């Protein structure tokens, strides 16, 4: 078999296939429910209710999507320039650390928010800068360095939380002091967890889109990513572009951690991120590295997870079904999206 590009796919194809992917996921859900001794025909309803069935559910989905948008953007930007940043997790925590440093009394005025946001981006950028300099100067593979930095950063955070940054009022539990009021991102709807970090994420997506499409830097970034040799020959300062890309990518990932702390948790703990950095890679690739698409895929991923997780409780089946369904939905969806662009032919 081989794949043949479709010049202009029909609307039916472009809508039908993704729907089919969702359908397949629901079928998987039903089968799993059956295996676990629950009612297979209830699951669809339970998932939908859990993901978007109520104002609460919907906002929870968006809330979980927020960090994914940031990490997704971070990865999308880096991968565009063929900079394999697998370290969004580490950069995320760098941002979170700054949010705490700045938010626990370093500054006592509303401007602490923008300031700490910027510093957070700087910190995240710094974390990625190392691997990128190693890549450009010594040709050290960044996949490995960024990957390993994730582990190092987590241990560093654990050290901070059990040492210098430990909350004296925390009864010995390893977590940071809570942020002061000024340093918190307000909530969008009182009583529900969704905070302005989400709005910020949307803005970030638009900004990244504009940078990529409308600025010379964006052009350089895409050129370097598509053909390094040609870019260099054309006089594009390749290494500078890689470094700038890294700064942007690291900064975006850092915002994920920053907004989780400033918007959601109000303090830093070791388990701030259940792998948002890694899921960001999925989100970005699912969106074909398109910044606007990232928003959609992030919400999709969050929705599937929140929905199936809620379903696991409604149907009383092991909670691990949520991750199974997320993974299935994901794989079905990438396949479906591919088949909207190509058709399978023999030979």
């Amino acid at each position, binding site marked *: 078999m081989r794949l043949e590009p479709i010049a202009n796919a029909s609307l039916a194809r472009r809508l039908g296939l993704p729907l089919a992917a969702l359908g397949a996921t629901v079928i998987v859900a039903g089968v799993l429910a059956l295996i676990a001794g629950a009612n297979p025909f209830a699951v669809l309803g339970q998932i939908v209710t*859990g993901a978007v069935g109520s104002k609460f559910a919907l906002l929870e989905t968006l809330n979980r999507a927020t960090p994914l948008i940031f990490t997704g953007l971070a990865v999308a930007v880096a991968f565009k320039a063929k900079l394999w940043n697998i370290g969004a997790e580490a950069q995320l925590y760098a941002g979170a650390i700054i949010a705490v440093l700045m938010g626990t009394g370093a500054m006592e005025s509303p401007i602490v928010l923008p300031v700490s946001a910027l510093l957070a981006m700087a910190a995240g950028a710094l974390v990625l800068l190392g691997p990128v300099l190693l890549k450009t100067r010594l040709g050290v593979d960044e996949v490995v360095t960024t990957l390993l930095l994730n582990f190092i950063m987590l241990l560093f955070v654990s050290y901070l939380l*059990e040492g210098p940054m430990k909350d004296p009022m*925390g*009864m010995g*539990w390893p977590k940071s002091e809570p942020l002061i009021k000024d340093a918190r991102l307000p909530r969008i709807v009182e*009583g529900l967890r969704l905070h302005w970090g989400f709005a910020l994420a949307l803005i970030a997506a638009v900004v990244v889109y504009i940078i990529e499409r409308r600025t010379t830097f964006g052009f350089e970034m895409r050129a370097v990513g598509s053909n390094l040799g040609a870019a260099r020959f054309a006089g594009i300062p390749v290494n500078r572009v890689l470094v700038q890309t890294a700064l942007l990518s690291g900064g975006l990932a850092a915002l994920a951690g920053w907004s989780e702390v400033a918007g959601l*948790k*109000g303090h830093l703990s070791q388990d701030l*991120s259940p792998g948002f950095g890694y899921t960001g890679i999925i989100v970005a690739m699912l969106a074909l590295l398109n910044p606007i698409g990232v928003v959609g895929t992030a919400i999709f991923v969050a929705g599937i997870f929140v929905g199936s997780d809620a379903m696991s*409780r409604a149907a009383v089946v092991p909670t691990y079904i949520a991750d199974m369904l997320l993974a299935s939905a994901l794989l079905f969806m990438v396949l479906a999206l591919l088949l909207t662009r190509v058709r399978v032919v023999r030979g």
Partner: protein
Amino acid sequence: WAAEPIKMAGIYTVPVEQQWVSRIHLAAEAAKAAGAVDYVYTENVANTDYARVMREYCEQGMQLIVGEIFGAEQEAREVCSEYPNVAFLLGSSFPPDEAANPNLAVFDNYVQDASYLSGIIAGAMTKSGNIGMVGGFPIPEVNRLMNAFMAGVRETRPDAKFQVSFIGSWFDPPKAKETAFAMIEAGVDLLYAERFGVSDAAKEKGILAIGNVIDSQADYPDTVVASALWHFEPTLNAAIEAINGGAFKAADYGVYSFMKNGGCSLAPLGTFEGKVPAEVMAKIAEKEAAIKDGSFTVAIDDGEPKSS
């Protein structure tokens, strides 16, 4: 018991095999078997999702929610105040707050009493006086027991030396095992088994181990001398009675883990019956009595234990 079983939900941030959580889970299963509650649970919940899960259960009409909010205090307490008719019994490092959350009672594994007694045995059983302790993370729930244990050891072995290591994970038995091996090489002849994997190392190298929170002697008959057990039943039953009596209110249920309330105990010596010197057992009996009648209290120290 009331006719109607209470609708109860457990929310745990780790899989229910984790020793600490397993005690809550087993107590709940027991209550369910006794028809007192109608119990469902969710495990391995990330703290990010904790508040959401609490809410979902509340919306499902749960009457009692049990869990651990060490990593999500603030958000969790908000949810509590949003559902005043639901009773919350949550593991927390913070005191209850009558004003803000009249429906939130807190607890923790205050089993220092038993740990202390197990320490006394350890001190008596070690020859080299060199004792190893392998922990997951140095959190209060872990430190508290280690410190009490060390205090106990010093009763019978004032010159005891301790080697403490944390492996930075709740679930990496191979790593815990390797760490234990390293300690044994370094001359340790008795291990305090806070993590899975430690007793296995002790067993392989033929030295002794002291169990913790759960009784694992069945798996290591010739290795685990004694274990400091945590019994969650008193805590849970107290809550259930309160609810049935319509009297559930903010309170610190920590005391229900104390020995005098049957919240913890020293596991029966079992296979080691008679292998522990009689005078030591006598000492333990006397200490136990003292603890129970309140004439002696084991200090609660949540600080991170260090090697000596």
